[in-house]
């Protein structure tokens, strides 16, 4: 028993959300990109529509589009993306949703009312990427300690120099090319390679 095709699902989503956009990822996987404001009604449609009935939230994750491969053409696009992987256990079809939120005011409506599994997933995305899920009952850090500063999976995250007085490097320890830490001086730009030495 096979469910709806991706094109049919995308057309059904487009009926409730005009701005829905079908995008194909680098490896050919199609997904639907919807604006954050339309997420509650798109999610409710996917969850409750008898023909769609995506009752399983397989995964909810996110990524930072800053310095994202293939993103060079639009350098202004430094949004945080939240990805929803949905599956219908009855119809056996899958659909991938993506929502983008601006970096500074990063808020996305919660879907934990529709899929309780999103409670932990959203806490993880909040912890590591700093996305505020509006309506989540207890949006706390889940992996990092509660008093952690910053969101580590953001591409512009600066590693802390110490935590609770314990420095991140041991005495005398030095690594070439280690990530920059808070308080480190600005990196000096690498000099352009010269042709000297390459006869």
């Amino acid at each position, binding site marked *: 028993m096979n469910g709806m095709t991706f094109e049919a699902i995308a057309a059904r989503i487009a009926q409730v959300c005009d701005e829905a956009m079908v995008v194909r990822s680098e490896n050919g996987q199609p997904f639907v990109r919807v604006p954050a404001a339309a997420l509650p009604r798109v999610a409710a449609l996917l969850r409750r529509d008898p023909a769609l009935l995506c009752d399983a939230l397989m995964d909810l994750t996110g990524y930072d589009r800053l310095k994202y491969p293939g993103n060079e053409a639009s350098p202004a696009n430094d949004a945080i993306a939240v990805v929803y992987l949905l599956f219908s256990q009855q119809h056996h079809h899958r659909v991938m949703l993506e929502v983008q939120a601006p970096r500074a005011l990063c808020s996305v409506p919660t879907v934990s009312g529709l899929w309780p599994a999103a409670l932990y997933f959203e806490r993880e995305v909040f912890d590591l990427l700093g996305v505020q899920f509006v309506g989540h009952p207890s949006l706390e850090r889940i*992996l*990092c*300690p509660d008093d952690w500063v910053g969101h*580590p999976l953001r591409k512009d*995250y600066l*590693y*802390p120099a110490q*935590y*609770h007085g*314990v*420095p*991140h*490097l*041991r005495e005398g*320890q030095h*690594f070439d090319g*280690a*990530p920059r830490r808070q308080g480190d001086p600005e990196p000096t730009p690498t000099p352009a390679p010269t042709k000297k030495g390459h006869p």
Partner: protein
Amino acid sequence: MAVADLPKPGNDPHEQIVLTAVDEFLAWGKENSLFYLLFATACCGIELMQAGGPRYDVDRLGMIPRATPRQADLMIVAGTITHKMAGVVRTLWEQMTEPRWVVSMGSCANSGGPFSKWSYSVLNGVDKYVPVDVYIPGCPPRPEALIDGVMALRERVRRYRTMGVRDRDPHVVQGADCRFGSHPGKPEPQA
């Protein structure tokens, strides 16, 4: 007088006494009953379990795993310790009764290991939170290396129990970071 007529030593209840220093007797008992607290957080824990299994069998040294710090003399920190976990290590160490001993097993517990360069969340050595008596290098060290470290620790336990000397400088097991498939006593294959 025939030999059979001599009084047999030991038959008299008053002769069934061994005179020795009680400290040495207690030390003998303590060093042969090092109960250890299981604190396995990563792949070193697999080697720790292997050391407790029938092939290496640390039970023969009197080492029995305990699930609670109240019954443990020795904490074997086997695996990666994150900043979030470090407080738990400290709490468990504080709950152990004196004298308490700590073995840091593997590169992660020693210094952060492969995570020390790129990770923001891994503690760069459990000795930032608890005092360590024996370091065992290796990623992960073999069970022989763990047993080697424990033998060095038993020496320290005996010194502490008999002479009251608590060594503060940590012992580092040598030759534990050997190649995969070998161990310190095994000759290297000829090329």
